[in-house]
């Protein structure tokens, strides 16, 4: 091996090590599992409640639907904070590691629009169009995940794309194919994306996980 090849090899090793060290997974497997289970549970609960209503009953206002999902979001954020704190303590790292701060800076702008849209829907006297609200939540959540793609593992970017493309599906789903007189489509969309996608993501991470990552997942 000549000097140039040796130097190139050294630089390649350095680059690989640095990339590995700077990768940050904004959603840990335990958080995805808890979030996924809560979302699927909520979606099923909505479906069961809907089944118990009279066939000709009116679809309830989307405020009820949105409020429940915001409670689920708050629960998942609280659980995530607990997991991050636990991992930070175990590794002797600060609660907000450098990777977490970087991820928050990337994600925050993408959450402004869904937050504003949610507030607007609640303040507007008209009934909330849950279908539009859900497509905004799914789309911008996908964008938030993709905003971390530069320093995130590939699985997280794939999850981001899955959310983004699903939001388009929600918007452009042909109505004749999705006959939905009881207005359950937004609920199914939430269950499928925030529920099943997160469960699939958690399963993928756990199945691929190497032993060395086991104690190193939620923070860095």
């Amino acid at each position, binding site marked *: 091996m*000549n*000097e*140039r*090849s*040796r*130097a*190139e090899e*050294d*630089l390649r*090793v*350095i680059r690989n*090590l*640095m990339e*590995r*060290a*700077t990768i940050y997974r904004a959603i840990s497997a335990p958080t995805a599992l808890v979030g996924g289970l809560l979302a699927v549970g909520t979606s099923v609960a909505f479906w069961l409640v809907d089944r118990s209503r009279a066939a000709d009953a009116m679809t309830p206002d989307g405020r009820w639907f949105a409020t429940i999902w915001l409670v689920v979001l708050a629960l998942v954020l609280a659980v995530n904070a607990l997991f991050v704190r636990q991992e930070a*303590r175990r*590794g*002797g*790292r600060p609660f907000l590691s*450098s990777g977490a701060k970087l991820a928050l800076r990337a994600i925050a702008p993408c959450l402004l629009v869904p937050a504003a849209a949610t507030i607007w829907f609640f303040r507007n006297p008209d009934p909330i169009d849950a279908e539009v609200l859900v497509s905004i939540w799914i789309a911008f959540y996908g964008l938030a995940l993709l905003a971390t793609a530069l320093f995130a593992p590939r699985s997280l970017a794939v999850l981001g794309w899955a959310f983004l493309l699903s939001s388009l599906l929600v918007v452009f789903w042909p109505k004749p194919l999705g006959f939905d007189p009881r207005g359950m489509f937004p609920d199914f969309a939430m269950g499928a994306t925030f529920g099943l996608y997160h469960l699939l993501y958690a399963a993928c991470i756990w199945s691929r996980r190497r032993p*060395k990552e086991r*104690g*190193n997942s939620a923070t*860095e």
Partner: protein
Amino acid sequence: MPDFEKLDKAIHEKGRLAIMTLLASRVRWSFQDLKAELKMSDGNLVSHLRTLHKLGFVAVTKAVLDRPQTTYALTSKGRSAFTKYLEVLEQIVRAGKA
């Protein structure tokens, strides 16, 4: 013409190069994280870190959180030596292409 003789021998050793690279990528590393990332034995890692510390490339901080923990960070001298090391490597690659 740049060559491998100009590279810092302390950093050029494979294990120490890996340690310096990781320390350059984050502000601070705990011993356990370094060990997990590099898959080195305790003795090997301690020996390399001691060498780098003696050269003034690595700062060591001992703290007691839930349990005693030692963390490592690059000093400005270490960062500058690592940057210089990378520059020499790049020069070698460029010279080889010319």
